[in-house]
């Protein structure tokens, strides 16, 4: 566990992707395959089943440390993380100088002998096992133990970075490892050996093409030349993905390089009708009766580990398809866009005969002049699109982000001026500062809260604001401070809709702070009527 704790500390201490990959790669090289397997499992977000609720741990920690509950809660407010608070209030382990050195207990033994059996134990047995572990461990190890047994272990690395580190440690190509890690592998020594095995025949079949990405449009439209040279499509706000059909199997890859096949059973079912050797590129959208649902609906689905029939019925998805990269096993990427699109339309032509419109060609927006484009772009919110895509008709499907032939042209976000009325400390990295704010608009003489935002300020602004908050608190409710309504901010958000669940009657999507309006008095903030007008305008 010590070297895994060291790896955790190294990953936690740096924000540099390179250093993270280097630290993991070093660990994978030096650890035994059995330990490396569990490290991969946890770093990539794996969680053992049947875990202990963290509040139960907290109760045992209070007993063990003889810290009264109210003082534990005070400590929790200062730390911002329950598992960490527990690790810190427990008495420090003191090792006498003359104690014999203890050999390291390997990670896989901790997991297999001490953590996994917890699921089969009675509460009393769990308590004994947990207290014993706390007494043996110290510092970071104790923190990691708490995180692992409560199923909350996470460190700032994505599965993609783990894949990169495994690739560096083994010399096996990233795509091959991503394929293997996305399938069903078990965290054992053999499982790890299979992950990094050099024979890659198994992975070729699933491999996606590198995604071609657009740049944000920065020039005036006429600078692009003639509108007839361009194809316009809606810019969908979903999950960019490739659907691959090869060897009688289907693979769905997200743009982040993750294999997400399991998440979209309706796409998998429909893909059985695709001929072998097909690669589609498009946007996975929540889609019902021919129209897009709000992105928030898709988020409900993404958040779930298990997809029940209810959620599948409420939020069906479609692949709004805009490109065809492979047909009958032939790589089409060097064909011009118009040709790829023609082949795509032919392929999907019998879409109406498919039961539930699962693969939909992304509609082409008719743009005869740049004025048409401006009008179309302005109407994109009506279709739950976030703007227009402009693609050169003769463009090839490139690699990565290239300037020139594909542009994304997003509509401006909504924005209103609002006043901060509540503040509370953040979690994790921001636990000691007030970083979570609630904002209100005016409703006659009253202020109605309508949005919370956590981001958009610089670290320096956060510190200044934190100091102001501490000095201008009207009331405290636990960690939440009701502050004087003085500080005005311009809030930007992507969408707005009616919501009976909110006091204000409105819900906004992805609110964030655009600017701190120190120049604006609270008398000049927007009103609830402004928000209602925005809803009406986009319904």
């Amino acid at each position: 566990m010590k070297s895994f704790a060291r790896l955790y500390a190294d990953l936690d201490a740096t924000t540099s992707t390179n250093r993270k990959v280097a630290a993991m790669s070093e660990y994978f090289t030096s650890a035994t395959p059995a330990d490396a397997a569990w490290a991969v499992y946890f770093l990539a977000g794996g969680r053992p089943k049947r875990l202990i609720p963290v509040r139960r741990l907290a109760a045992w920690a209070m007993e063990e440390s003889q810290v009264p509950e109210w003082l534990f809660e005070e400590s929790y407010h200062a730390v911002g993380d329950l598992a960490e608070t527990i690790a810190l209030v427990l008495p420090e382990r003191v090792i006498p100088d003359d104690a014999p050195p203890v050999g390291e207990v390997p990670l896989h033994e901790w997991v297999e002998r001490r953590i996994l059996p917890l699921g089969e134990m009675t509460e009393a047995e769990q308590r004994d096992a947990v207290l014993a572990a706390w007494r043996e461990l110290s510092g970071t190890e104790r923190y990691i133990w708490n995180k692992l047994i409560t199923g909350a272990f996470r460190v700032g690395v994505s599965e993609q970075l783990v894949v990169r580190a495994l690739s560096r440690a083994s010399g096996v190509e990233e795509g091959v490892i991503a394929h293997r890690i996305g399938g069903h592998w078990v965290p054992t020594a053999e499982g790890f050996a299979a992950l990094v095995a050099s024979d890659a025949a198994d992975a070729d079949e699933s491999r996606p093409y590198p995604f071609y990405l657009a740049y944000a449009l920065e020039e005036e439209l006429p600078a692009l030349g003639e509108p007839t040279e361009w194809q316009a499509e809606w810019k969908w706000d979903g999950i960019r993905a490739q659907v691959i059909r090869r060897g009688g199997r289907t693979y769905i890859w997200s743009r982040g390089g993750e294999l997400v096949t399991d998440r979209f059973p309706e796409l998998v079912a429909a893909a059985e009708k695709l001929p072998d050797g097909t690669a589609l590129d498009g946007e996975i959208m929540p889609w019902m009766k021919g129209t897009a649902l709000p992105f928030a609906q898709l988020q409900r689905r993404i958040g779930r580990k298990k997809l029940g029939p209810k959620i599948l019925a409420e939020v069906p998805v479609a692949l709004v398809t805009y490109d065809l990269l492979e047909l009958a096993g032939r790589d089409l990427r060097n064909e011009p866009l118009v040709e790829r699109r023609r082949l795509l339309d032919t392929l999907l032509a019998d879409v109406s005969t498919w039961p539930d419109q699962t693969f939909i060609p992304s509609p082409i927006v008719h743009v005869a002049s740049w004025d048409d484009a401006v009008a179309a772009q302005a109407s994109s919110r009506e279709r739950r699109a976030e703007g227009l895509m402009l693609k050169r008709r003769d463009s090839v499907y490139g690699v990565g982000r290239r300037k020139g032939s594909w542009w994304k042209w997003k509509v401006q976000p909504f924005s209103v001026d609002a006043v901060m009325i509540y503040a509370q400390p953040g979690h994790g990295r921001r636990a000691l500062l007030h970083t979570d704010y609630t904002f209100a608009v005016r409703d006659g003489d009253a202020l109605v809260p309508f949005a919370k935002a956590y981001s958009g300020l610089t670290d320096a602004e956060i510190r200044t604001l934190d100091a102001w908050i501490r000095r201008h608190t009207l009331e405290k409710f636990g960690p939440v401070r009701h502050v004087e309504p003085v500080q005005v901010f311009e809030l930007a958000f992507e969408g707005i809709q009616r919501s009976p669940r909110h006091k204000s009657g409105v819900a906004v999507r992805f609110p964030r702070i655009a600017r701190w309006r120190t120049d604006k008095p609270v008398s000049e903030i927007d009103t609830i009527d402004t928000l209602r007008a925005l809803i009406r305008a986009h319904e």
Partner: protein
Amino acid sequence: MLTVTQSGLYCPAADFYIDPWSPVDRAVITHAHGDHARWGSRRYLASRAGERVLRTRLGPEANIELVDYGEPVNINGVNVSLIPAGHILGSAQVRIEHRGEVWVVSGDYKTEPDPTCAPFEAERCHTFITESTFGLPIYTWRPQRETFDELLGWWRDNAAEGRASVVCGYALGKAQRILAGVLGNEIGPVYTHGAVERLTQDYRDAGVELPATTAVAALPKGTRFAGSLIVAPPSAAGSTWLRRFGDHSTAFASGWMRVRGARRRRALDRGFVLSDHVDWPSLMATIDATGAECVWVTHGYREPVARYLEERGLRTSTIASQWEGEGEGEDDTGVATGEEETS
């Protein structure tokens, strides 16, 4: 015996203030940190051990009466003496005795040994006024040898990979404690930020043994920093001043580094848990050792500490210091920075 006024703690019987927040006629100073030793008072009383650092802070014109630790001074019939507080060089607790009643004002203190200053002495008293900077049970310090071993290991690894090691800590006290902690283990040359160098020289003049240091500003152009240790104030973290060191690793030495969020937010490579304040167990042990029945709590987690003591049968009171909030304060540049370990 003492009351809290607009200018801070005041002794009406003898007409003096302790660490006043604004200019007064007579100020008794616990130690030279900026939020305790303020400019502008007519007369100061302070420990002889801290003379040099206090002069550096208050300027040559300040009228300072110096006393040895334990040497009684009679101020208008009240018996005042200074007791070592173990916080930084010259730091003192103020013991006040009048008509058989004894009060002790702790100032800032720690009970761990520190080669750069006289060790803390617990003094029996009726009323004890204690700081509470780290007054929560999550703040428990590991033995400092472990922290210094960690720091030396970090320096060694950086040196092996051709990097400079920049450690930030409060310029008065923490910086010198770090220097004393690496004495005899120098892995490469030791350089200092200007704010640190001057105070470090004050420490040496006062007889504290420290490794040889050179101010970065005094180095010839083109000096290579790979393998060196650079001791800098917290304000240097994230500043352009660091660019000159080329490839380097940054660290912060402070009690706040005990909490992951505080470490992460600074975006530094390492956080070393090293404090010049008492941790929770030592705070409780010290209050116990004073035998005080009444405890006033100031500077830090006042409310939780007071409530905890109340539940143990002590009478308590909390004093709002001028610096509001948890661990908020100023660093060497005098700029409020959120949560530096002050004083």
